[in-house]
């Protein structure tokens, strides 16, 4: 039994699971600074650092997709 509804995107999962559909190539990604907690937008070739505190640890944001769990 699959306990969680969320499946990590795989290469052959089709348009729903894949993040690289060609149409929406994201040039900017937002991260969360591990030092000051502020949101950091990084351009494609920008240095990996927080633009407020220069912290070099950046975390990925939580998925915006709905995640299903069984309450068990």
């Amino acid at each position, binding site marked *: 039994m699959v306990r*969680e509804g969320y499946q990590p995107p795989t290469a052959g999962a089709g348009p729903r699971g894949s993040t690289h559909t060609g149409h929406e190539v994201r040039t900017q990604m937002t991260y969360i600074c591990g030092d000051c907690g502020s949101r950091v937008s990084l351009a494609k070739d920008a240095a990996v650092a927080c633009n407020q505190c220069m912290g070099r640890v950046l975390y990925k944001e*939580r998925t*915006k997709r709905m995640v*299903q*769990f*069984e*309450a*068990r």
Partner: protein
Amino acid sequence: MAPSKKASWTNAPDAEELEKRNTVGIHKETVTHNTSVDFPGHVPGEDEAFSLDRFRDGFSVDFHQNDPFHASFSLMGIDASLSNAFRRILISEIPTLAVENVFIEINTSVVQDEVLAHRLGLIPFKGGKEGLHNFLKWHKKPEPGEDAYKNSYDWNTVSLELNVKCTLNEDADPREDDPRKAYHNAHVYARDIVFTPTGAQEQYFAGDDAIAPVHPDILIAKMRPGQQIGLTMHMHKGIGADHAKFSPVATASYRLMPIIKITRPILGADAEKFQKCFPDGVIALDKVSAKEAAQKGSGYESHVGETKAVVADPMRDTVSRECLRHPEFEGKVKLGRRRDHFIFSIESSGQWDSDELFMESVKHMKLKCKKLEQQVMDMVR
């Protein structure tokens, strides 16, 4: 040849014999006579076959306490197999409504998604009885790969929402160290869950009948400013055998009625010590009356006015056997339990009333018997 004298066992059993058969013996280190003997062929010449009339004559119910969250009552004249069946049905077969699926949109609190989902599942909910028991039906789980909402309708799925965001309380003292005052929504409680009725649920769960947590103060998560929980829950009907969150009772248990028999007088300081061997109210102290002292061979001779121990309320005894440890009470007291007297204690988790639960367990038992009867008939055919 003279007709042989009839053996003693051919006579009908007297009251003393019947009581002896019905008593579980409790001794210092052993428990004896713990199986019932009222079945055919156990005693020669006695017909102990089960008959409905005999059951009806011997059976009685006596309520001790009947509150929505706790019912306590005695069932007398019933076999352990039946009362145990009721207990087991109470725990694992009476359906209740509980959170089954959690759809998390956002959860930036420190509680992990699966832990949060598990916590939400364990919260007991209440609602209109008519809607819960008659309107709501079973939900069929969609096959793996099918749409999660496939079999969800208003008559089998109840939808709830929880949307809370923790923010800084600007009005609070900057030195405030109680997070509940310093921040808004620092603690997420069960009362923050919002019921969103769909379809016919608006009629069945309107006003006071709305689906709501039984205890609004259950803490679900703690948060700090910037953290947020946003989710939808789907509740389905289920049974305790599937998951404990569906069990309608917190506890459902029984114990046998204790018997304390003082066979020889316990007097004076011994009586007070004897009283202390039992929980409060089990043993009372009384004065030896002149009438008792006048009785030869009673053990009370020349003890008029002295204190003696008498059994006041054996039901309150926990049968700790403390009195059997002391040499001064040796041979003076007999402990036991009444084998066909079950003291039930049912604590509902809130969706049903406790007494209602027992009636429901009887209903379930009856249904099971009907099913078995049909199968036996098919077997014979």
